[in-house]
């Protein structure tokens, strides 16, 4: 039940938004707990968006990890950046 699913906001009407879960699934979610705009990805749990997903942070995380995992053991200090 702590499952939260990422969805993209496609329409906002006050506290309510239409969100796209992908695969043609479009639902209504309450977005009053987050500061979100159309096009943002939010985590939706039990009808409420609980957090906005940071796309740049996600890209940065993956980029850094790829770099680190390719690096040799001696360069592991770079890990501390994460």
């Amino acid at each position, binding site marked *: *039940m*702590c*499952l*939260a699913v*990422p969805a993209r906001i496609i329409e906002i009407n006050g506290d309510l938004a239409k969100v796209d879960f*992908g695969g043609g699934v479009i639902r209504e979610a*309450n977005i*009053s*707990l*987050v500061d979100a705009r159309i096009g943002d990805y939010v*985590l939706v*749990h*039990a*009808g*409420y968006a*609980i*957090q906005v*997903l*940071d*796309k740049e*942070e*996600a*890209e*940065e*995380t*993956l980029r850094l*990890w*790829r770099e680190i*995992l*390719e690096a040799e*053991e001696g360069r592991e200090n770079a*890990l501390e950046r*994460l």
Partner: protein
Amino acid sequence: MLWKDFKDPQLARRITEKIREIAPKRDIIKICHVCGTHEWTISHYGIRSLLPENVDVIAGPGCPVCIVPASEVDEAVETALRGATLVCFGDAARVPGSQMSPIEAKAKGADLRIVYSVIDAVKMAEREPNRDFVFFAIGFETTAPSTASEILKRPPRNLSFLVSHRLIPPAMELMLGIGDLQIDAFIAPGHVSTVIGLEPYEIFPKVYRMPTIVAGFEPIDVLLAIYMALRQIRNRTATLENEYRRAVKWEGNVKARELMRRAFKVISGNWRGLGRIPDSALTLREEYLEYDAHKKYGIRIKRGRDIPPGCRCHLVMIGKIKPTECPLFMKACTPQKPIGSCMVGIEGTCRIWALTTQGSNPKSI
């Protein structure tokens, strides 16, 4: 979508190699998570089978439906048998009480309605003003803000609430007090953390010297969290790290926390099979007691039968045993005919093991 990259098999292979490289070679290492969704990712993607023989991931009490004590289910059933319409999430309908589950109460004539969100309960109460509704509010910090938000808006008075919300960090602390339970690192639940932030976990590295990694739910997230935990174990450090940076900020969701604080106060609460945990439950503040179903129906059940005979849910829930070590698992107790609550909740360890290959191919160390 970018999140698909967090399922990248090539990256998963590389992290797995790194895990094997840095894992201690002989000592048995147990990394404990406390979230049913983490258990699902681990079981579904067979992550345990990728780890070295001496490294295991154990599941703590991370299923909100499983840990609701029977006495609180009994209260929900009682309101329904007295004529109220009981409204709950899907898996909460089958959670066992001392005598019966909500769905068994329905078979005895009670009115039970399954919803996806507390919002649906409010809409029902607005549509049917002559009917009394009771919302059985189960869930951890991820779910509690939605309940708080609707209560603070003062919904129609024909809707009341049985608040069974529980808080995760106190349960993690309880686990560290169980002397014969080995835990070498925590993987903290990502979605609970989107709300509460990182600060509540600081106690684990600071006081208990326990490496603690907040992690997301894709296979790459979980593998990275395991890697980060093993790196700390190898370096003999204990810090709080955030793997799930795309969703979890230091301060969490400030708005959500504020709503929880305004609607609820923190009290000690019973957890099924685990007993009473200080500061681990939420209850309505005085200003909102008119919405308290306990008060409205004059019911307060203090004791219930949490664990049916033969059931080992209380041991599964703290990761002391694996579901396959319970004599009832997939014999008397199945997803179709569950006996213990761990086989009922969609995030219950037994249910997840039963529905994935984990159940038939357990890793034992």
